[in-house]
C-alpha cells in the first residue's frame, strides 16, 4: 500500500526531496509497469515517461498541488497518463510505422523514427518473461480501455483511484473496464483458438 505524502508547514528543500523521493521509490515499479504497457513494451519510451512523471510530480509537489491524505500513486499515475496522452501518443514518435518517407532512394531505411534495437530487446524480454498472449492482447486494446484495465486489474487501483488517475468519472471507469475486459477475453480466446488450444 502506498504511503500518503505528508507535507510539513515549512519544510526545507532536503526534507521535501526526501519525502517525495520516498514516495517515488514506492510508486516507481507501478509507474514503470503502466508506462511499459502504454508504450507497448518500448523500454526507452517507458523510462522517459516515468522520468518526466517524477520530474513533473516533484514540481507539483513543491507547488502544493498534491493534497495531503490523497493517494500518491493515483496522483503520479495521473501525471504519467496525462503526459502520455498529450505527448507520446499524439507525437507517435515511438511506434511510427516504417513508411516510404523513411526510405532513401536506394531503398535502405533512412533516419529511423521507428523503435530502436534498444527498444526491441526489452520488449521481447517483457513478452518472454510475462504472459505473452496477454501482453499482445493488451497492446491491441484501444488506449482508453487499456489504461483502465491496467490501473484496475494490474495495478489494483479502486474505481475511484482509477477515476482520479485518468481524470474521468467513476461511471466511465466502470463502463470502460467492462468493455476492456470483455474485449480482452475475446482477443485471448481468439489467440487460443489460433494456437489450437481451444475449439472454435
Amino acid at each position: 500500500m502506498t504511503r500518503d505524502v505528508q507535507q510539513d508547514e515549512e519544510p526545507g528543500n532536503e526534507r521535501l526531496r526526501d519525502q517525495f523521493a520516498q514516495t517515488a521509490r514506492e510508486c516507481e515499479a507501478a509507474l514503470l509497469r503502466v508506462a511499459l504497457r502504454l508504450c507497448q513494451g518500448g523500454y526507452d519510451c517507458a523510462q522517459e515517461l516515468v522520468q518526466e512523471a517524477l520530474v513533473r510530480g516533484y514540481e507539483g509537489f513543491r507547488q502544493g498541488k498534491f493534497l495531503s491524505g490523497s493517494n500518491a500513486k493515483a496522483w503520479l499515475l495521473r501525471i504519467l497518463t496525462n503526459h502520455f496522452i498529450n505527448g507520446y501518443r499524439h507525437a507517435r514518435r515511438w511506434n511510427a510505422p516504417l513508411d516510404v518517407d523513411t526510405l532513401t532512394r536506394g531503398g535502405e531505411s533512412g533516419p529511423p523514427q521507428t523503435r530502436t534495437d534498444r527498444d526491441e530487446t526489452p520488449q521481447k524480454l517483457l513478452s518472454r518473461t510475462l504472459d505473452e498472449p496477454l501482453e499482445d492482447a493488451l497492446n491491441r486494446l484501444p488506449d482508453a480501455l487499456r489504461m483502465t484495465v491496467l490501473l484496475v486489474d494490474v495495478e489494483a487501483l479502486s474505481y475511484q483511484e482509477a477515476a482520479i488517475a485518468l481524470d474521468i468519472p467513476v461511471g466511465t471507469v466502470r463502463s470502460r473496464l467492462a468493455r476492456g475486459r470483455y474485449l480482452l477475453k475475446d482477443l485471448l480466446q481468439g489467440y487460443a483458438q489460433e494456437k489450437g488450444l481451444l475449439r472454435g
Partner: protein
Amino acid sequence: MDNPLFRFLYSRLRPDEPCPHMRLLVSDYASGILSGGSLVYTRSHLNACPRCSLALEGLQQLRARLHAAGADLPRLDNAHRAQVEAEWERIEQAQTP
C-alpha cells in the same frame, strides 16, 4: 424468453457472453464492488443463468492473469534516475528565493 425479439438477440450471442443487460453487473461483480440490491439481483441472476456464470468465470480467470502481470518490479535505469535527480535539483534552485 418467449419474446421473438429477445430470442433473436440471444441467438446472436456466444455461449459465454453475458445477457446484454448484465454486462456491467457481471464485470462489477468480478471486481467485488457490488452491494445492496444490485448484489442480490446479480447473485440470483448468476445462479439461474449459465451464460452469465460462464462469462463471470472467464472474467475471474482474466483478472487472475492480469493480477499476475503486475508482479514484476521494473526499476528506473541509472541514466534516467540521474536525470531525475538533476531535474529535481534544477527545480529546487529555480524555486528557492
